[in-house]
């Protein structure tokens, strides 16, 4: 077997093992969440008996280990379970499958994340490479200053500023990004423009600075000196000689930021009323809807693991030393 395939398979196995460990952490940390679903949903009507009956109905009276086993067994078969809410005080079972709850929200989140990524990733690479090329110039400094400013503000602040300028004073884009399954693609782009722009502003700095730093780091290496001595232009030095060796750290940072776009944007979702998965998870935590919380947490963990795996693979494929081990 080719060593690369072997390494990739090894990483994949590690990923699955990590996911398993994460599932234990998710489950046990939810066990330690204060409050409980039955009391929470019954609200003013929570008495000893109704709470006990409710817990029994939801299977919450069984030991945690048993519940964990059942949950993992179901998840492996692709069944994330049934949401707790819906079985409210009125008792009608109008609970929905966790998958049905998560799927449309996840689709929206992935759409927004892709939109932001499509803008942010090329932009930050471009800025990173060009600032490395013209480092310490006025251009370098102003790009650095701008991106550091946007990353320093909290997301909601950036979002409100964008709303103020691009929705209130100069109404170019809508401040409400409430898309649904039937929204046509063009309309979707239009509505998601401001949230995507907010996210772009928030993540560009990290990726751009990492690209710049990785390249500048390499510029001191002897082989770059050699390339310069042999007459390569600065652009050539960076693109042809430095960049291929810088891909590994850059890919890691990009993966990290993409994962953030999926799992960390709840504030942006709330400000723009965007029906994404973050809001769903916050709602679920507030109402102690454990299956939904677990489902979301598992998806978030998977996002991190998969994206890091991809970053690792890119690192291996672009690094000759890892590609041809002795």
């Amino acid at each position: 077997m080719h060593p690369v395939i072997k390494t990739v398979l090894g990483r994949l196995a590690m990923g699955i093992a990590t996911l398993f460990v994460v599932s234990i952490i998710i489950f046990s940390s939810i066990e330690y969440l204060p409050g409980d679903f039955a009391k929470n949903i019954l609200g003013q009507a929570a008495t000893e008996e109704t709470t006990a009956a409710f817990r029994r109905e939801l299977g919450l009276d069984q030991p945690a280990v048993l519940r964990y086993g059942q949950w993992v067994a179901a998840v492996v078969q692709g069944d994330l379970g049934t949401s707790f809410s819906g079985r409210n005080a009125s008792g009608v079972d109008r609970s929905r499958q966790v998958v049905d709850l998560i799927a449309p929200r996840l689709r929206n989140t992935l759409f927004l994340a892709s939109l932001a990524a499509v803008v942010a990733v090329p932009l930050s690479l471009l800025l990173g490479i060009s600032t490395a090329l013209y480092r310490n110039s006025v251009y370098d400094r102003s790009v650095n200053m701008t991106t550091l400013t946007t990353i320093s503000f909290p997301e909601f602040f950036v979002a409100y500023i964008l709303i103020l300028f691009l929705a209130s004073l100069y109404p170019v884009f809508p401040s409400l990004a409430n898309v649904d399954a039937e929204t046509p693609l063009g309309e979707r782009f239009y509505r998601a423009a401001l949230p995507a722009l907010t996210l772009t502003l928030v993540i560009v700095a990290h990726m751009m600075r990492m690209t710049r730093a990785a390249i500048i780091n390499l510029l001191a290496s002897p082989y770059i000196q050699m390339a310069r001595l042999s007459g390569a232009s600065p652009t050539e030095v960076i693109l042809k000689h430095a960049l291929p060796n810088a891909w590994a750290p850059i890919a890691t940072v990009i993966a990290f930021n993409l994962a953030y776009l999926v799992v960390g944007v709840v504030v942006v979702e709330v400000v723009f009323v965007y029906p994404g998965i973050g809001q769903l998870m916050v709602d679920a935590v507030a109402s102690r809807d454990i299956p939904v919380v677990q489902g979301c947490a598992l998806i978030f963990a998977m996002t991190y693991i998969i994206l890091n795996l991809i970053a690792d693979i890119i690192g291996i494929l672009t690094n000759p030393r890892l590609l041809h081990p002795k």
Partner: protein
Amino acid sequence: MSKLEYRAIQGLKYKSGQIDRRTFVRSLLATGVALPSALSLAGQAAAATPKSGGLFRMGVGHGSTTDTLDSATSENHFTLINGYTFGNHLTEVNNDGQLVGELAESYESDDGQKWIFNLRQGVEFHNGKTMTSEDVVASFNHHMGEDSTSAAKGLLTAVESLKADGKNRVIFDLKSPNADFPFIVSDYHISIRPAGDMASGIGTGGYIVQNFEPGVKSVLKRNPNYWKEGRAHFDEVQLISIVDPTARQTALMNGDIDAMDRVDLKTINLFKRNPNVNIMEVTGTAHYTFPMRLNVDPFGDYDLRMALKHSIKRQELVDKVLLGYGAVGNDHPISTANRYHNSDLPQREFDADKAAFHYKKSGHSGKIPLSAADSAFAGAVDAAQLIANSASEAGIEIEVVREPNDGYWSNVWNNDAKGWCACYWGGRPTEDWMFSAAYTNDTEWNDTNWKGTDGSKKFNALVIEARAELDDTKRREIYYECQSLISDDGGSIVPLFNSYVSANSKSIAMDDQVAANWDSDGAKCVERWWFA
């Protein structure tokens, strides 16, 4: 300038948008016009003939992924508005607070126990089926019986049986007389749906559900066959769940929505400055309370309760906790929006002498703990601090205990471990309903445990008597007495009624009076409002 001229000028200013409704009403009050007439004059100045057409988008500060179209499960304002938009009920509370027949053309009873509802004929459901008594019976049975899990089950326990009498008449037999029964059937849960299909959102209402996404939005279009005249003016409707108040207000200012509920009071003064925005304030039945449990020491003592009731600066609470958007309470839960509000009862004010007198008489000494958390109501902890401050002026020491928000309703409220805490009540449309929810001795939510005293015994007997009393004057007298009993002997301190504060774009017009039974014009704004 005479008062009349001044009023006329203010009216013109209000009409042309130079002053807002609040200022206009205030200017009328200043010239000696009573509040109800001032409100209706404000409406008249703004009233216009309804126009039809347009897409109405409303941002609602509620909505959750567990919402459904089955009215038995309605529990938040989003489901309320949505339900009232596509469905009708036997009766409705109209915009001036009167109960009128909706799907019932008329209703009658000789003894308050047997109620006959005559149905409106020729009303069609959205699926084309004609509404008959069979559908009404099925819709009620949906909420009744052993197996029913409807949130309205408790409301209808008084119903012994109901039956269809021909196609257009339904007869209810109650277990005991209840003069308020026609009021109860207007409850938002008891929507009339076609027999056999209670959950899919088919109703007789002015709008037909096109697309309903729980927790996100509901899209509706006008029902071309709507039977009700002069209602349902918009062509299309979008109810959008926008839980974040800032997002809701921004959307209204930017014209992304036309109306919204629940304005954030902290920013209302800035929000008001926007030239496109109308702020609407309605005093409803919702109120904040501080229930003292009579079975927990020292609150069993009448004088101690009186001492505390006299040591509260109510207007200060309205001004600081509600920023003026509310009214003072008189230690009973009946608001001016209710039919039988006791206006003769003198308003209880802060009185350090009286408080000190009663406190001394009670013989109590030491700190009195008062539990509060903001999950009781926004600003509950601040309100408790203000109470502790004013009470100290009367020499009463109150220790404010800040409780965790989480589990507040199960661990603090209505719990013998805590004698005194902060609480919130949404209010009920009728006196009987409100009393039976929290003050009679048979309700589990009697959060003051006001049960054994002479006052409470008398109160319980009066409530039952009033239920069977069909004579309006006599009922009024009984309910007046009930309010004074709660106010004096009861365990609850009711210092505030919070107003519903909502906003809409200036392009929206509505009738001169706005209903107060729920926020958003009785949650029926969609069929009542129009684009000017």
